[in-house]
């Protein structure tokens, strides 16, 4: 009689969605499609490699995992060759690394997933979003969507770890994951619309400084609400 041991690893669906949403964010920031496709292949191969390794197919696992790393290296290479100037590198490379780190956190490389690595990964994607904003590289709509997508990716990753801790990686958690991520996705769209709206109706006469003060006030209010 084999005893089934609960695997308290991040759940598959939410993890996959987290990585996909992060890829979508990078796509919105005009990362090259080839690089993102290579990155996706790399992450998939890495996941498969770890899966095989865990099932004690060590050699096959190592080979497939190496393929994953190669895919990732290829993605970075393509991104490097495709971009022009320093600004492109600053904009896109952290994001590609971020997606890879996010995948490492959720596969997971060791233990039951790492919240810190999820934060680091999505944080790197957010650095890409910030850089794109600084260099004015993308349209406002794309920037907002990418920013919201970063938050959704982080939320999905954290949710995957947290459900995994409670219930383990199995088939029993799909509906709660979908409902949770759908909820966050809706709020993200709402947030994007709100941001666009407030950008549109903003009192154009108001100086940036006073706008910032207003914003800081709102943020402080939100902080106060949280504690």
């Amino acid at each position, binding site marked *: *009689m*084999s*005893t*089934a041991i*609960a695997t308290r690893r991040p759940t598959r669906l939410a993890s996959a969605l987290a990585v996909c949403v992060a890829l979508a964010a990078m796509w919105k920031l005009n990362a090259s499609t080839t690089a993102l496709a290579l990155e996706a292949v790399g992450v998939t191969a890495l996941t498969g490699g770890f899966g095989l390794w865990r099932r004690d197919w060590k050699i096959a696992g190592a080979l497939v995992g190496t393929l994953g790393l190669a895919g990732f290296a290829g993605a970075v290479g393509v991104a490097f060759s495709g971009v022009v100037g320093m600004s492109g590198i600053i904009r896109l490379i952290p994001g590609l690394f971020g997606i890879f780190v996010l995948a490492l956190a959720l596969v997971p490389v060791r233990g039951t997933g790492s919240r810190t690595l999820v*934060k680091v990964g999505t944080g790197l994607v*957010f650095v890409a*979003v*910030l850089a794109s*904003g*600084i260099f*004015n590289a993308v349209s*406002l709509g794309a*920037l*907002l969507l990418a*920013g*919201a997508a*970063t*938050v959704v990716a*982080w*939320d999905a990753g*954290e*949710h995957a770890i*947290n*459900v995994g801790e*409670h*219930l*383990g990686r*199995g088939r*029993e*958690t799909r*509906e*709660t*994951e979908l*409902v*949770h991520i759908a*909820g*966050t996705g809706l*709020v*993200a769209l*709402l*947030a*994007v619309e*709100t*941001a*666009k709206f*407030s*950008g549109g109706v903003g009192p154009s006469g108001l100086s*940036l*400084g006073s*706008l*910032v003060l207003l*914003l*800081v006030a*709102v*943020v402080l209010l*939100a*902080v106060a*609400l*949280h504690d």
Partner: protein
Amino acid sequence: MTETHRWRGVIALSLAAGAVGLAIDRPSMLLLSVIGVVFAAYPHVLSEPTPKLRIERRLSNSTPRPGDEVTVTVTVTNEGGFLPDVRIVDGVPALLSVSVGSPRKGAVFWPGRSVSFSYRVGTKHGKHPFEPATVVARDISGAWEVETTISADTELDCTATEADGPLRDQTLDQVGRIVAQKGGSGIEFYRTREYRAGDAMHRIDWNRYARTGDLTTVEYREENAATVVLLVDARAVAYRAATDEPHAVAYSVSAAEQLLGSLHRDRNLVGLAAFGREACWLEPGAGRSHRAKAQRLLATHSAFASIPPTEEPEHEEQVEQLRMRLSSTTQVVLLSPLSDDAIVETARRLDAYGHRVSVISPDVTGEESVGQRLAGVERENRLSALRKSGVPVVEWKSETPLAAALMNRPRKVNA
């Protein structure tokens, strides 16, 4: 209810975006921080979940044999409002292991929805009550979390069929029928003796008188019902187990259950007592309702719980308490893994006070490590010490039925 604070990070992101926007004079970055503010506000427009759930468990077989697999089907029904994220972990009995499927389930509950899931457990000897299921309900943002338990009385009883078959009647009868070693009125022939004036006419052996001319009286074996107290050692030290096996207390309780049945059947007065976190005492008695009461105590009394006690009263005190309760003619059947010297001392003392003590000792020692072997040797020493002082000990290895162990026991329990 707890707050998970999982959305705290987005405020940091908002501030970062806002600060960068301010530094380099970019309104688009400020708008980016609006997204963070919306997410920070998101959990606060939601209310905390209030789970009202009911649980039902169905067992494919509630009285299996040891080693069988039982399918447990759990149905959880929502009797309250919408719950977007509910995580259920069923309370599988501590000693059983899940072999197929998972006792865990995540579900979205709209009002009135029922969700079922099932898993299989491998059974082991003993009675296994299910623990309450743990439920964690979160709101859709994940910011509010409520943890609670829902219970349903379910028990997996894996004792009834243990001593089945021809062995049981034969051997448990030996323990059950406790015959007196003195002649009197009964139905079994005991001896003949010389006639004494006053003996009843019908007791005189007239055949012998016709043959020899001597008057002799026939005596029959007197049958006394015995008063027996089944004493379960459920102190923390008795919660010992070999790897992956039920602990000794589970074995002791199951043995008590079986003895209870056979002793009652033979119309003995049977009582129940336990050393452990709490004194358990049931006055010796007979009859169906008394037996049912004893069985209920064995199944539900906290002294026999499946988790070891964290603190327990002084052993000496419990022994003294028990001694006050035992009447002078009461025998004691002690069920103990003999995991320390105190219990040996107690058995000797009770025996010295005139209560005939016999010991049934489930063997839970292993052979795997040096420590386990040492424990085994120590137990052997205790067994022989008890036997030396005249207390009969039945060794019960977990793989053999109790009935078989009793058949090999060294001597009868005498009244």
